[in-house]
């Protein structure tokens, strides 16, 4: 390691910040938080200064490259993702992305912490921290998730830093992230990282089966034939797709998610004649395949992690017949929700779980809840959380969390439009609503009319409370509505500002702009303002300055009050 000592690091930073003529894009706040948000639309000096700072911090080891990738769309572009370290310990949420063209910087986004004054020798060992977390969660830690030391900035923004252990544990209904003080063993902060749908996955054994979705619509299923039976394991795509049927056993479902119970081939959804009639399994399996295809064909992304990681889902996590005996958290999570657990599963590479819904005769809020896997946008939404995890890793709280949710909504809607022509038998009409195919009537969110579900369509109406990780499923509609306006155009209800969208026929432009911004430009702590600059930068990268796409994106963000 080539890290500087604390005083030296601080001195370098401050020296850079105070050099004559070196005016950063955004000066550090009084709490020492420095936000980098410089693109080709920014003043050239700001971009140069940000680039110089990144170079300097990289040379002294304060910033280390986490990933270096060539641009999937623009041949001359490259992308770095860097993590800030203090005395060799990563600083939580402090990441930077830098886009270059032939070595020349194009954009720099991220968050850095200046002037960290913290001793980094822990009093507690990692095992000690693990015990604390096990007590807090009541569960055994993921094997792949041993506590890691991080420098933790105070949530209140007071410029105070703590040396903590970060660890994750699935509690049966939540994927909790714990931050345990490395000196005292006390809990400093925790949040639920379970990405839920709403608040509260050419060979000799391959076969093509015919399945009926929950709407009795015919679908082709890529499956595996073994010993006279057929299993929901797609081996024809570059990334394997697995659909496991938990057969209503909630305890086993939870054990699988915790990593304490293995999944066997016999757990795969199965059929004896390759004419699949379980709509939940059919729609989950096919939906994951189509989401994979959308990511690949639209964005040239190789599955969720761009390295063809397998896609895996669980269906029938509970039995509808157990609704009235199930505890509320099980009802909320396994009946009335769908979620993606990034560290769950036998191999710790993530699992999507699709809720069972409610019995047909039971309505909730006037809505019927069917098997959640029956909605392609929900399937794609959940898998998109994994894309976020593998890219920007947007922190699942507050505005970054809302951006995390919004990105999943973009992918959900985008996949639905992409696959609209692939559906048969009257199913699969695409729209800007989420979950409308299984939560009837209406769905749960609308990017076109957020207020329809009481969600904000303007930044001034954003949710400022603590619940739902700071309103991640509520405030996501602000960028979500901007996404809609940038495509379809229209007038924002609150601001009265009109947006000249690129038009539905150019939908792909906005999808590309947002995908690029959210996967290669944004960082873990990005907020709405950063998302605005990043999407504008992305529009310039892809379609040129003053392009229709840039205009649409700029107007859309302005219309929803994000400047």
């Amino acid at each position, binding site marked *: 390691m080539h890290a500087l000592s604390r005083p030296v690091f601080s001195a370098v930073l401050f020296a850079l910040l105070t050099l004559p003529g070196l005016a950063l894009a955004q000066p550090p706040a009084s709490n020492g938080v420095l936000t980098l948000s410089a693109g080709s639309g920014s003043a050239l000096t700001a971009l140069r200064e940000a680039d110089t700072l990144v170079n300097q911090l990289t040379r002294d080891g304060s910033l280390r490259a986490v990933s270096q990738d060539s641009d999937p769309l623009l041949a001359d572009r490259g992308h770095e993702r860097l993590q800030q370290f203090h005395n060799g310990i990563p600083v939580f949420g402090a990441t930077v992305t830098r886009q270059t063209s032939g070595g020349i910087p194009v954009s720099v986004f991220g968050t850095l912490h200046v002037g960290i004054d913290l001793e980094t020798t822990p009093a507690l060992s990692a095992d000690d921290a693990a015990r604390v977390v096990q007590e807090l969660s009541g569960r055994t830690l993921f094997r792949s998730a041993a506590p890691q030391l991080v420098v933790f900035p105070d949530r209140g923004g007071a410029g105070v830093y703590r040396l903590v252990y970060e660890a994750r544990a699935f509690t049966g209904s939540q994927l909790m992230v714990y931050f345990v003080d490395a000196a005292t063993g006390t809990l400093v902060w925790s949040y639920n990282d379970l990405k839920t749908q709403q608040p509260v996955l*050419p060979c000799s054994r391959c076969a*093509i089966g*015919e399945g009926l979705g929950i709407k009795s619509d015919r679908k*082709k299923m890529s499956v595996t034939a073994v010993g006279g039976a057929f299993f929901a394991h797609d081996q*024809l795509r570059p990334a394997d797709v697995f659909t496991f049927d938990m057969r209503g056993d909630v305890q086993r479902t939870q054990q699988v998610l915790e990593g304490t119970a293995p999944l066997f081939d016999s757990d795969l959804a199965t059929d004896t004649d390759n004419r699949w009639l379980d709509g939940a399994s059919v729609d989950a399996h096919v939906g994951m395949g189509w989401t994979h*295809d959308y990511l690949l064909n639209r964005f040239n992304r190789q599955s969720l992690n761009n390295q063809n990681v397998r896609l895996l889902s669980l269906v029938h996590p509970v039995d509808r017949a157990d609704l009235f005996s199930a505890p509320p958290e099980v009802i909320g999570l396994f009946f009335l929700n769908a979620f993606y657990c990034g560290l769950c599963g036998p191999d710790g590479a993530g699992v999507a779980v699709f809720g069972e819904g409610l019995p047909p005769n039971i309505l909730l809020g006037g809505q019927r809840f069917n098997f959640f896997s029956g909605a392609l946008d929900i399937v794609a939404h959940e898998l998109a959380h994994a894309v976020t995890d593998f890219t920007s890793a947007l922190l699942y709280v507050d505005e970054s969390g809302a951006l995390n949710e919004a990105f999943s909504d973009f992918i959900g809607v985008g996949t639905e439009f992409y696959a609209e022509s692939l559906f*048969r038998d009257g199913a699969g009409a695409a729209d800007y609503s989420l979950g409308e195919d299984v939560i009837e009537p209406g769905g749960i969110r609308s990017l076109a009319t957020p207020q329809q579900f009481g969600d904000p369509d303007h930044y001034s109406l954003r949710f400022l409370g603590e619940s739902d990780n700071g309103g991640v499923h509520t405030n996501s509609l602000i960028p979500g509505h901007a996404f809609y306006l940038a495509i379809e155009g229209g007038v924002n209800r609150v601001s009265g500002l009109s947006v000249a969208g690129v038009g539905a026929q150019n939908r792909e432009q906005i999808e590309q702009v947002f995908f690029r911004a959210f996967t290669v430009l944004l960082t873990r702590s990005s907020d709405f303002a950063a998302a605005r600059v990043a999407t504008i930068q992305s529009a310039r990268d892809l379609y040129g300055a003053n392009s229709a796409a840039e205009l649409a994106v700029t107007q859309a963000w302005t219309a929803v009050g994000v400047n």
Partner: protein
Amino acid sequence: MTEAPVLGARQPRTRPPTSSRQGALLGSLLWVIAGVLVTAPAARAQPAPTERVVVRLDAGWRPASRTFADTRAFTANLEQGQFAADYELKDGGVFDGGVSFLLWRNLAIGLDVSSFRTVHDARINSEVPHPFFFDLPRTTEGRAGGLERREVGIHIRAMWVSQVTDWLVVSVFAGPSIISATQDLVSAVQHTEIAFPFSEVTFSGHTVSARKETTTGLNGGVDIDSFFLHRLPFLGDFEVMEHIGVGLLVRYVRGTAILPVDNDPIEVDLGGLQITSGVRFRF
């Protein structure tokens, strides 16, 4: 890699209706008869041949190529796919022989046997359903080679024989034929999936079924025989040479066969124009 083949119901063909083909056949026959009638007065001025029996042994060529097409359906990836086979018959060799008898004046009757064989290709165009999606077939092209067509015909002919000179005999003829045809048909195709995203598929093979059918048809044409060998100085001493000649026969044969394929027959045209020449023996 998956195989996606097999048979299914046959699709409608793009062939002219049978009635129009029969009309054409009848037209051809009438053309030959008209030829006989037109040439008969001229022939009548000529003496009738004195020999009553002529035996003919020819070899030659059927120069014309012809095509026929067939479209068949198959099931693959849960959907109906189809392949169209365009059969491109080439020219081929013909052996033709027979005997004729002078009945009365210039009128004779003959019985011939001909044999034709050619080896040809078929161009295969397939639409193969996608493994993941309905109604998104992939198209592919291929060729099926080594297909064989055999035709053995028995031809009865009514002949008007004209002794144009003492060494030249010209006859026009027409009559019914019995044709036994054997045709190799592509009954199934095989394709191989390449790899994701399976937007392309390759033609990897075909299955051939030989089908045989015997049918009736018509034949007509002209036979020009020359018995000049005995006039040659070095052959004139041989009396037998008065009985040996050479000849050229131009025959048009026409027939239609219904070849059975999996209870779904295909109609193919038989015969065609053939030109043969060989030796003649008259008694």
